[in-house]
C-alpha cells in the first residue's frame, strides 16, 4: 500500500469565523494553522479546572446529571484476558445497566478490541448501544499504516459503529506532524459512516500546548471525537486536559461550524469525578456538548458508581458496591 505524504510547502489557509473546515493540503498549511494557535496558560487552566470542580450541584440537577452521565458511558473492556463471555455480560449491562430499573438509560457504547466486535454486535442487536473498537495498533500505535488500516477495516467489517484510533505520539513529539495528520486522514477516509475518535494519549504529550495542537490536528484531519487517553499509561484523563480539549473543540466549532465531540477516558471511577467533568463541559464548550453525541466517558468501574449513587439518592442510604454486577 502506498500512502501520500503532504508536500511541505503551499498556500496559507484562512481560518476564521464562518470559514468552514479548511482543506489542508500541505504540511506547511497544517503547521501554519497549528502555529497560529495561542499557547495554553497551564497555571490558569489548572486553576480554572480546580475552581469548576468546587461548583455545588443541587439535588434535582444531580439526579439528571447522573442519568446523563450513564448515557454518556462507553463501557470499556480492553484486556488481554477478555473472553466472549465477558463481552456478553458487558453488552447486557450496557443495554440495561441495572435490570431492576428500566428507567435507567442504556450506555452510549461498548468499547472493545476489534476481534470482539462481531460478538458484541450480535449481543447488542436491537438496542441503541453502539459498538466502538479500538484500532490502529492500540494502545501504542506502533505499526505501519498498512497494518493500522487493516486493523480498522477488520473492525468495520465486523460491524463497528465507532473507531477509536491512536495517534503516533512518537511522530507527533518529534515534529512529524504531517505523518500524524496523514494517518488520521487515511483512517477517516475508510471509516465511512462510522464515527472516528482520535486518541491523543495526553499523558504522553508532555505539555498542554501539545494537547491543544494535537486536538486541532485531529479535528482538521476529520475526527468526530477527540479522546484523551488509552487508559494504558500512567497519566490518563485529567480535568485540566479535558478543559483544554473542550476549549479546542469550542474554538474549532466557532471557526469552522463543525462540532467535534470529546471523550475523557482512563481513571474516572467516581460519580463525583463524572459530575465535575460535566460541569467543565457545560462551562467550557457549552450545553450543546451535554449529549452522548458530543461527550463520552470511557470507563468500566464508573458505571457501577453512577448506579450506586443513583440508588443512594433514592433510597437515602449508602448501598453495597456488590449490589450491581461486575462486568
Amino acid at each position, binding site marked *: 500500500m502506498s500512502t501520500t505524504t503532504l508536500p511541505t510547502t503551499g498556500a496559507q489557509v484562512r481560518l476564521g469565523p464562518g470559514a468552514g473546515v479548511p482543506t489542508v493540503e500541505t504540511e506547511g498549511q497544517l503547521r501554519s494553522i497549528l502555529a497560529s494557535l495561542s499557547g495554553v496558560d497551564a497555571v490558569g487552566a489548572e486553576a480554572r479546572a480546580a475552581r469548576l470542580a468546587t461548583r455545588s450541584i443541587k439535588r434535582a440537577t444531580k439526579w439528571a446529571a447522573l442519568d446523563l452521565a450513564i448515557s454518556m458511558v462507553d463501557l470499556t473492556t480492553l484486556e488481554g484476558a477478555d473472553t466472549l463471555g465477558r463481552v456478553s455480560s458487558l453488552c447486557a449491562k450496557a443495554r440495561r445497566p441495572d435490570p431492576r430499573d428500566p428507567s435507567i438509560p442504556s450506555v452510549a457504547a461498548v468499547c472493545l478490541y476489534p476481534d470482539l466486535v462481531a460478538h458484541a454486535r450480535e449481543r447488542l442487536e436491537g438496542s441503541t448501544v453502539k459498538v466502538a473498537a479500538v484500532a490502529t495498533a492500540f494502545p501504542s500505535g506502533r505499526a505501519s499504516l498498512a497494518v493500522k488500516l487493516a486493523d480498522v477495516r477488520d473492525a468495520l467489517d465486523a460491524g463497528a459503529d465507532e473507531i477509536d484510533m491512536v495517534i503516533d505520539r512518537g511522530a507527533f513529539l518529534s515534529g512529524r506532524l504531517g505523518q500524524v495528520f496523514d494517518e488520521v486522514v487515511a483512517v477517516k477516509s475508510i471509516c465511512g459512516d462510522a464515527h472516528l475518535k482520535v486518541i491523543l494519549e495526553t499523558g504522553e504529550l508532555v505539555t498542554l500546548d501539545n494537547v491543544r495542537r494535537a486536538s486541532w490536528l485531529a479535528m482538521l484531519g476529520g475526527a468526530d471525537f477527540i479522546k484523551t487517553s488509552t487508559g494504558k499509561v500512567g497519566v490518563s484523563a485529567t480535568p485540566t486536559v479535558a478543559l483544554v480539549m473542550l476549549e479546542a473543540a469550542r474554538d474549532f466549532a466557532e471557526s469552522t461550524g463543525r462540532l467535534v465531540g470529546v471523550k475523557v477516558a482512563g481513571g474516572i471511577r467516581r460519580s463525583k469525578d463524572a459530575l465535575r467533568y460535566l460541569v467543565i463541559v457545560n462551562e467550557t464548550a457549552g450545553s450543546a456538548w451535554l449529549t452522548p453525541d458530543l461527550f463520552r466517558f470511557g470507563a468500566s468501574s464508573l458505571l457501577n458508581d453512577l448506579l450506586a449513587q443513583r440508588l443512594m439518592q433514592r433510597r*437515602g*442510604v*449508602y*448501598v*453495597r*458496591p456488590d*449490589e450491581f454486577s461486575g462486568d
Partner: protein
Amino acid sequence: MSERLDVRKTYKLLIDGAFPRSESGRTYEVVDAHGAFVANVARASRKDVRDAVRAARAAQPRWWGASAYNRGQVLYRWAEMADARSHELAEQVAAAEGLSAADARASVGRAVDRLVWYAGWTDKVTQVFGGANPVAGPFFNFSLPVPSGVVAVLAPRDSSLEGFVDVVAAPLCVGNAVIALASATRPLPAVLLGEMSATADVPGGVVNVLTGSLEELAPVLASHEDVDGIDLEGALGATGDLAAVAAASIKRVLRPGHGGAEAPLRRLRAFVETSTVWHTVGQ
C-alpha cells in the same frame, strides 16, 4: 533564646491509614471533665463515614487473609506502641474522665493489657469457636469461624480508652475491619490510640476512627448497606432505633451488655460467622 510557641494539635480522623480533616471541614471543641477547653477535634460527616466504609471494605480481605499469628503480632505491636506512649494516653484519660494521675495510669495499663489479651486470641478463635462435626460418612465436616466483614462500633461514652479498646480490638482480632465512632465528649484517648495503630503495622483501612456527633453519624453507620455488623455499646438511648435501622440491611447487631467477665467473649463472638466445610477423608 526566645520563648517557644505552643505547638497546638488538631485532632483528626483516621481513615484508610491517613489522618484527614473531616471532608466537611467542621471541627468541634472538646472540654475536659471540668469544662476547660482541651482541643479542637474533627467533626466527621456522613461522607467521612462513606469513605471509611469504603476503606474498610477494601482492607478487610487482606487483614483476614493474613495468618492469625501475624494478626496477633500486629495487635501486640499496637499494645507496645500504646505502652511506650502511656504517659500521653494517661494525660488525656485523666483530663477526659476527671481521674487522678495514678488512676489514669492504671486505666491505661488495663487498656494495654486488654489489647495484649485480644492479641493472644487471634490464633485461638478458630480452636474455641470452630470444631470438627461428626458425620455419618467418609467425610470430615468442619465449622470454621470467619469474620462478618466490616464492623461499625459506637464506642462507650464514658470509658474513653478501656472501653474503646474492647469494642475495637474484639472484632479486629477475629479478622474484621473496624470503623469506630469515638465517644463524642471524650474522644482524645481514642484518637491517640488510633494514631498509634498507624505505627503498629495495622494495615491502612483496617482500623478507622471517626469523631463527631453520635446523633448524626450513628444512623449513617447503622443504615449503610455495606456495613456487616454494628456494636451499639455507646448508642445510649438510641439502641432500639439504630437496631431497627440496621435490620433493613440485615446487620449483626450487638446491643449493650451488662459487662462482667463474659463481656469480652461475647464481643469476640459477636461478629463471627460460621462457615461449614466438607472435606473428603484422605487415602
